[in-house]
């Protein structure tokens, strides 16, 4: 919203942006990131979604002076850059405790102790990079900072990674720097969290957990890689919860540990790996990053036929995704992820089902009443949401316009191909789990690793 105003300003068209009070501090971060810290703002007090029509009217009347002021009053802009430390500048010298306090006070940690990023430690990481420390992988908004290889190593040190993880850290940042990941929206109110999925032989070589407790902290590779990404989003993208700004996750969640597939289990049953599904060769090392906004309950399924399992997966994973499906319908991109336990995948595959068959079943059989989709969208704030309009625009297949009956069922998963499937978890239990993606924010992006094993 502010970015659109900035585009207008660059085109010589003055702007004013209406920002609600709770977004005021985030707006300041965005304005600074686009190089226009004085971008005019008219502040709507409070939360419009809990205001009735009379309250909205009264508040807008009080906004008019600020709107006029923003559009008509000349604004002086300081065109000087703030002086910031260079990469190798020592910014502090102290004991372990003193370093923690110094970093914590400046919002440079995630609240947990960090490994002090000394130059020798950073250099050990760079030995595994084969890239110039000054190389810029991309720029990360809202703070709009250059994601240098050096900064990746610094935050990798701090997060407790091992130096040999460096190629993965770079690939993760390459992924989130892609426009389709939309890192600038990683501070949106749903509070989505990136999930890293590691593919290829590298997972075994670097001792990633792929089995029981795969999504729990405890294994250094999974845990520190996940922690690194959250730390990097704070420090380089500028996404900080209060007393910082930029991260407006309303309740949000903590970082996800990196997920690694049990590729041996997938191979045994003749299924493609998740990495292959993303277009890589089986042994290629790769990382995929996508947003996760919530998960399903643990899904227990039993039986000797594929249908015994996929029916329950459709019920439980489908219900977990159903509420949020309006976001995927609105933005025509949504990539939920289903982690299937190895023992369950084995039964499904033995019955002749491929991953595509599972995806097709979910696409065909999980529905939600149209009325509920539109109701949930309105409550979020998508006050102009209309399935009919989306279908007419081509964003959704024509079936979503349907008969006009508000109780008509519509598919929760608009495209079968959007559903990701990973085989992982406890091979000694019959459990799966689903992860709900946050539409175009945190879209699934994969990167091949510059790593040979």
């Amino acid at each position, binding site marked *: *919203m*502010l*970015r*659109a*105003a900035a585009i*207008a*300003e*660059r*085109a010589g*068209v*003055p*702007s*004013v*942006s*209406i*920002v609600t009070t709770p*977004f*005021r501090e985030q*707006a300041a971060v965005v304005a600074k*990131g*686009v*190089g226009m810290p*004085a971008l005019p703002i008219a502040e*709507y007090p409070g939360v*419009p979604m809990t205001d009735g029509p009379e309250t909205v*009217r009264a508040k*807008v009347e009080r906004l*008019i002076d600020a*709107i*006029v002021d923003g*559009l008509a009053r*000349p*604004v002086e*802009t300081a*065109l000087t*850059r703030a002086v*910031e*430390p260079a*990469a190798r500048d020592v910014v502090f*010298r*102290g*004991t372990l405790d003193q*370093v923690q306090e110094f970093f914590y006070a400046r919002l*440079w940690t995630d609240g947990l102790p960090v490994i*002090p*990023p000394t130059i020798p430690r950073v250099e050990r990481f760079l030995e595994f990079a084969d890239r110039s420390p000054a190389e810029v992988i991309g*720029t990360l908004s809202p*703070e*709009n*900072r*250059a994601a*240098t290889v050096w*900064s990746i190593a*610094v935050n990798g040190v*701090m997060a407790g990674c091992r130096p040999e993880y460096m190629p993965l850290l770079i690939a993760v940042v390459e992924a989130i720097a892609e426009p389709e990941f939309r890192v600038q929206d990683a501070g949106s109110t749903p509070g989505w969290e990136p999930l890293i999925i590691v593919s290829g032989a590298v997972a075994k070589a670097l001792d990633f957990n792929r089995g029981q407790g795969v999504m729990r902290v405890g294994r250094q590779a999974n845990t520190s890689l996940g922690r690194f990404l959250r730390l990097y989003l704070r420090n*380089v993208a500028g996404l900080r919860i209060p007393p910082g700004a930029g991260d407006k996750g309303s309740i949000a969640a903590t970082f996800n540990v990196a997920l690694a597939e049990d590729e041996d289990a997938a191979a045994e049953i003749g299924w493609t790996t998740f990495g292959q599904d993303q277009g890589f060769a089986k042994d290629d090392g790769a990382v995929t990053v996508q947003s996760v906004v919530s998960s399903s309950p643990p899904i227990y399924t039993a039986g000797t036929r594929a249908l015994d399992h996929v029916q329950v997966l459709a019920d439980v994973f489908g219900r977990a995704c159903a509420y949020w499906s309006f976001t995927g319908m609105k933005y025509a991109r949504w990539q939920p992820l289903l982690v299937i336990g190895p023992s369950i995948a084995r039964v499904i595959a033995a019955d002749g089902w491929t991953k595509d068959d599972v995806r097709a079943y979910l696409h065909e059989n999980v529905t939600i009443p149209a009325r509920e989709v539109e109701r949930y969208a309105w409550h979020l704030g*998508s*006050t*102009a949401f209309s399935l009919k309009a989306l279908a007419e625009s081509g964003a959704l297949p024509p079936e979503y316009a349907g008969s006009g009956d508000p109780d008509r069922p519509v598919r929760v998963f608009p495209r079968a191909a959007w559903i990701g499937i990973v085989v992982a978890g406890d091979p000694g239990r019959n459990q799966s789990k689903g992860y709900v993606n946050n*539409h175009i924010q945190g879209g699934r992006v994969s990167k091949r690793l510059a790593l040979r094993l």
Partner: protein
Amino acid sequence: MTTADREPVYEVVWPLAPSAAAPTALASRSPDLAGKTIGELWDYLFKGEEIFPLIRRALAQRYPGVRFVDYETLGSTHGRDEAELAATLPALLRKHGCDAVISAVGA
């Protein structure tokens, strides 16, 4: 000698990265909105369909001849590819003769 004296001392570097934000001047403003054309940029969130008509009415009462290019004409600003928006929005504003824009609602 205190415990702190015996502890190792660390010389640490900055965990942030260079800013890529280029300070940019805002567009020049006209002190009077009378007779101007104002474009509406909406992200299709948070009751813009109620808010914009109220703004239109209030500004029209205050400034004779003020004209609006509504949000339906300019299209949603939310969820669009930023590079695509940057490439198309200036031409759209020129096409409709926008002298100023109001962007809403959120952050």
